[in-house]
């Protein structure tokens, strides 16, 4: 474990990305205590303005402060990103463990179902689920969570197949350990590294999907801000107030970029040999 920490502190990309992400998280958590305008408060006299001392990044078509809307949007993006990945990781682990460990028809049934889910384009499936459940933040989380299940199921199943025939699993069996004990105490702790890496990358994917859904009007509902929704709204005012589209895009870019690089760096840390040959 300590060698992993050492690797981590040596990896500058990982360190910088982590600082950026921590900064975003801290700002989001303490946003209520910052001297900001309310993200939903309209100021008729200050519509479509550029950056000023009063409005740090300018205002939108209703005179709402863009800076506080972006921070408020970050809260939703992170909420959707993290909780949808928790759903997909949780279900993916269970399905993947069952498919990989028990094999036979469990494996066929689970993996063919996952193949069907995989066959749909990600955004289309999410769209269909949200359309069926109705728009809203919670349903968006659920839809994105479901869409990502197959990725994790496959990953976990593959890792289980690599581990389950090792002798320490066999020795646990020969000691009389029950299947649940073998699955959660012997196998799971040994396959966490790829899971962690994939989860990080999935968070950024989920944030993008949420933006796309909100852009299409099926995600987070107005007046609550989300990055995708803000970009959608800004289309009509692009020429009058370019800041309206630039700032949310930039916020998304930085966040996704940081998460992706962080995931990549984690991968390098867990597989130190990967980059060298």
């Amino acid at each position: 474990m300590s060698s992993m920490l050492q690797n981590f502190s040596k990896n500058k990309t990982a360190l910088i990305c982590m600082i950026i992400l921590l900064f975003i998280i801290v700002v989001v958590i303490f946003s209520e205590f910052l001297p900001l305008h309310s993200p939903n408060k309209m100021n008729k006299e200050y519509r479509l303005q550029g950056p000023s001392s009063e409005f740090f990044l300018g205002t939108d078509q209703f005179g709402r402060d863009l800076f506080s809307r972006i921070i408020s949007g970050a809260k939703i993006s992170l909420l959707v990103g993290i909780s949808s990945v928790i759903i997909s990781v949780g279900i993916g682990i269970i399905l993947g463990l069952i498919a990989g460990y028990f094999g036979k028809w469990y494996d066929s049934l689970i993996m063919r179902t996952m193949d069907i889910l995989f066959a749909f384009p990600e955004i289309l499936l999410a769209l269909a689920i949200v359309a069926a459940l109705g728009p809203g933040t919670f349903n968006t989380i659920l839809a994105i969570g479901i869409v990502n299940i197959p990725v994790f199921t496959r990953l976990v199943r593959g890792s289980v197949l690599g581990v389950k025939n090792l002798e320490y699993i066999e020795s646990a069996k020969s000691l009389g350990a029950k299947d649940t004990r073998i699955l959660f105490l012997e196998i799971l702790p040994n396959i966490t590294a790829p899971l962690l890496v994939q989860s990080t990358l999935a968070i950024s994917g989920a944030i993008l999907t949420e933006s796309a859904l909100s852009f299409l009007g099926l995600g987070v509902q107005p007046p609550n801000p989300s990055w995708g929704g803000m970009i959608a709204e800004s289309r009509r005012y692009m020429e009058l107030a370019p800041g309206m589209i630039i700032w949310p895009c930039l916020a998304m870019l930085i966040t996704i970029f940081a998460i992706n690089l962080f995931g990549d760096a984690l991968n390098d840390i867990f597989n130190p040999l990967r980059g060298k040959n």
Partner: protein
Amino acid sequence: MSILLETSNLKKHFESNGGFWGKKKSVKAVNGINLKIFEGETLSLVGESGCGKSTTGRLIGSLITPSEGEIIFNGITVNNLGKEKIRLLRRDIQFIFQDPFSSLNPKKTIKQILLDPLIIHKIGTRAEREKRVNDVIESVGLSQKQLQRYPHEFSGGQRQRISIARSLMLKPKLIIADEPVSALDVSIQAQILNLLKELQKEYNLTYLFISHDLSVVKHVSDRVAVMYLGKIIEMADKNDIYKNPKHPYTKALLSSVPIPDPDVQRERIILKGDLPSPTNIPSGCPFHSRCPISTDKCRVDIPKQHHSENNHIYYCYNVPS
């Protein structure tokens, strides 16, 4: 001496799936094994790789279920027991595996690894469990200080000691050692083999010792069973089989053991051909395709069991008892 374990006509055929369109094949890994293991002895199973000796060990330890035949352990027929009863039986039969690098979970400390068997079978209070761990770790020649470490901090020999300690935790009657020293350096092999012998005396253990290394087998065994293509072809006391092998296959095997003296000349029996595939076992005597003394009869009939003095058993038509 009382019989601890007995198998009769034990078989394991693995169905190999020849793909969606392919023909199903059956790999006859173990093809009718009859053996008795007496309490307190060391019975060795020897044979070349792929002859089914590990599969036999795993059948006897109920890690896999036999396709046919019976296993009787301590007077109980194992085959028809339910899952729960087999779990209880596992307290009495323990394994030591070949590869000390993959037989210990890398994410657990040695203490956790040793406590596992007691936790699984809900034996003892916390203090009793700790005491047992401390006793056992010392009896395999490691110290209590090393309990908090992880497997990767140990050498191969030390890891094998930990494996042995784990197998002792439940005070088993029978230990199935599947090539326990073949992954170790020769100098360490001797230490581990001597440890196994000491523990056998101390705890009155019975070993089923599976190995391909005839010098190792000579060192540890009381009796030796030689396997070829899923069958035992000769079984006798150690001294008997090493001095007076009957079956031509055993003779060939023994002639391949190196003698640590370059001046000694002896006749080596080199077998022709390769080990036939266990999906396609030759008719009659399974060894006839490579046997230097085979006759037409060997091609047709499966040899009966022949007895010679001192309970020496072998399966061959062409050797006088």
